[in-house]
């Protein structure tokens, strides 16, 4: 893809995500300003007019101003980096995002690396030994795991490891008795709380990695250079690692960045299962709590993360694959 088209895609996607959240408020059944004003009026004891004004300010939304003008001023605020203030948490949205983003990054990046390495190894093995029992097991595993949503695996893990065995905590990101800091006790608690969410991700995504890698390995195995490597009498180990693995892994590395992006979306389910306070947890609570500014900010960051991950994937691919690099010049 040319750089111009790439930038355009980024621009369109971000523009789209800001537009959809802008219109969600306007298309909502009922008047959000009025609903909120009622709450403020009753809860804070201010006059009705003042309550309406406050509601408009907090929602960044004034129904009396024409739509086009609202839209432009809304985009202007976002360009300036002003995401508004959360209604439920009474804090700037950007602050909340800065607070919760690291937790999602922690869980998803560790899970991604583990499932990538494990899945790739399994996939190469299954592609090489296509009649093995492991290959059949892998297919059966993916057929079942792929059809149930990730949160169900999360609950099954909770039942097993938290309730029955009592080994691991089932909710939260660290022991609330501890004060956050760089001490061993706190780090251990964070690690302990992250195990089950990470395991959920690994169990649900390792099959996909393995099947993808297997398909790639199978197609590489048909190439002439493999036949010639076999004919030259190279050792199996050498063929698998430096001939099959090295060539088949290229598209998988692209997939790595794409999967990282999509994990942000999937975090909605996994983080809700474990009440893990990351992006997904706050995004869904912003939606159920009708916290529009938080919802808008979260969705924007989510889309930006995904779009950047996808573009990073394409750039990475052209850097690591000499064939594409040469063709591009």
């Amino acid at each position: 893809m040319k750089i111009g088209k790439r930038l355009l895609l980024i621009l369109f996607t971000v523009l789209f995500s800001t537009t959809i959240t802008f219109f969600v408020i306007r298309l909502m059944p009922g008047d959000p300003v009025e609903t909120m004003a009622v709450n403020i009026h009753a809860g804070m004891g201010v006059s009705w007019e003042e309550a309406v004004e406050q509601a408009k300010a907090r929602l960044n939304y004034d129904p009396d101003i024409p739509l086009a003008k609202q839209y432009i001023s809304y985009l202007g605020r976002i360009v300036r980096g002003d995401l508004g203030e959360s209604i439920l948490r009474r804090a700037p949205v950007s602050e909340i995002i800065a607070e919760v983003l690291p937790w999602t990054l922690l869980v998803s990046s560790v899970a991604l690396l583990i499932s990538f390495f494990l899945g790739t190894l399994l996939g190469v093995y299954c592609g090489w030994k296509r009649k093995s029992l492991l290959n059949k097991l892998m297919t059966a595993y993916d057929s079942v795991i792929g059809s149930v949503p990730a949160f169900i695996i999360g609950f099954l893990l909770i039942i097993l490891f938290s309730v029955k065995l009592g080994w691991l905590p089932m909710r939260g990101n660290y022991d609330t008795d501890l004060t956050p800091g760089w001490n061993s006790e706190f780090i251990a608690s964070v690690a302990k709380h992250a195990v089950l969410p990470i395991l959920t991700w690994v169990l649900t995504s390792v099959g996909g990695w393995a099947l993808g890698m297997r398909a790639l390995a199978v197609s590489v195995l048909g190439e002439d250079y493999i036949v010639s490597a076999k004919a030259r009498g190279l050792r199996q180990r050498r063929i698998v690692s430096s001939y099959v693995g090295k060539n088949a892994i290229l598209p998988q590395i692209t997939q790595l960045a794409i999967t990282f992006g999509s994990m942000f979306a999937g975090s909605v389910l996994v983080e809700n299962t474990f009440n893990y306070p990351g992006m997904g947890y706050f995004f869904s609570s912003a939606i159920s709590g009708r916290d529009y500014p938080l919802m808008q900010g979260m969705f924007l960051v989510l889309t930006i993360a995904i779009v950047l991950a996808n573009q990073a994937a394409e750039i990475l691919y052209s850097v690591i694959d000499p064939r594409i690099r040469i063709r591009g010049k």
Partner: protein
Amino acid sequence: MKRKNNIRALASDSEALARAYHVSKSSSKDSFFGFFRALGKNKSACFGAVILLIFFLTAVFGPFLIDADDMRSDMANKLLGPSAEHILGTDHMGRDTLKMIVYGAREVLTVAAITAVMTLVIATVMGMLAAFTKGVVNWLLNILIDVIMTVPSLPVMMLLSMIVKANNYFTFAFVLSVWSWAGLAKAIRAQILSVMTRDYISAARILGLPTRHIIFNELLPGITSYLTMNMIFTMRNSISSAVSLMFLGMADFSATHWGMMIQIAVSKTAAIYGSSALWYFLSPIAAIAIFGMGCFFFSHGLDEVLNPRLRTE
């Protein structure tokens, strides 16, 4: 004289063309039946087909086997474990879990089927448009498809559920399908572009057959099996998305839908704390997993038949 010869040559050319068109087309028809024969021999496809058939029959006839009395609450017998009377135990209102699963099969499959049809129709139309249009329209369509593919569907479905109340078949299927068609549209576009290079399509075009005829009689039959495979896959994914939305409390649907059963088991019973409600929690999960397995093996088998390169022998 020369001119006459030219016309004769042209006439015989077009005859040859027509012949080539029929031969090429009928051979594609032969392969259509051959396709089913190959499918029957494929173990994976047969295994999947049997599972899907069982679910389909349950969805069609199951609800007739259950009388309304069974769906009434019976608080004295709530959250029982399995017994001879209640094979899979009872729910939080004392209803038989197995009967609820059978009853819910129709709802689950109907939502999934409507979603799959909607997704497929949007994807086919958009894919064809992306394949046939030119210039700015084409450019915009491709950008649209790319944007929709980039932004993941679950968050968008969650946003949509704020505007559209997903509490009946059509609104629910709308929420599930409106953001799930882009990948398929892109694939269909590629399929069409590849089918367009086949001989019988070029022959039909040169013969001057109307575009409508080419699209519906020549092009679509060529990609039907591909669409079937994707329809099965879309059904499986849409059940997963439906269950996810229900879990997040963003779709309020009939309590016998398997997704609602899971949601109720998690939020209203102590299923995850190891009570006897565990059966009520695990039964719909098992139903979803087995159905998904059927979809997987059926489409896997289809794929093997369609792409001989994948056949493992």
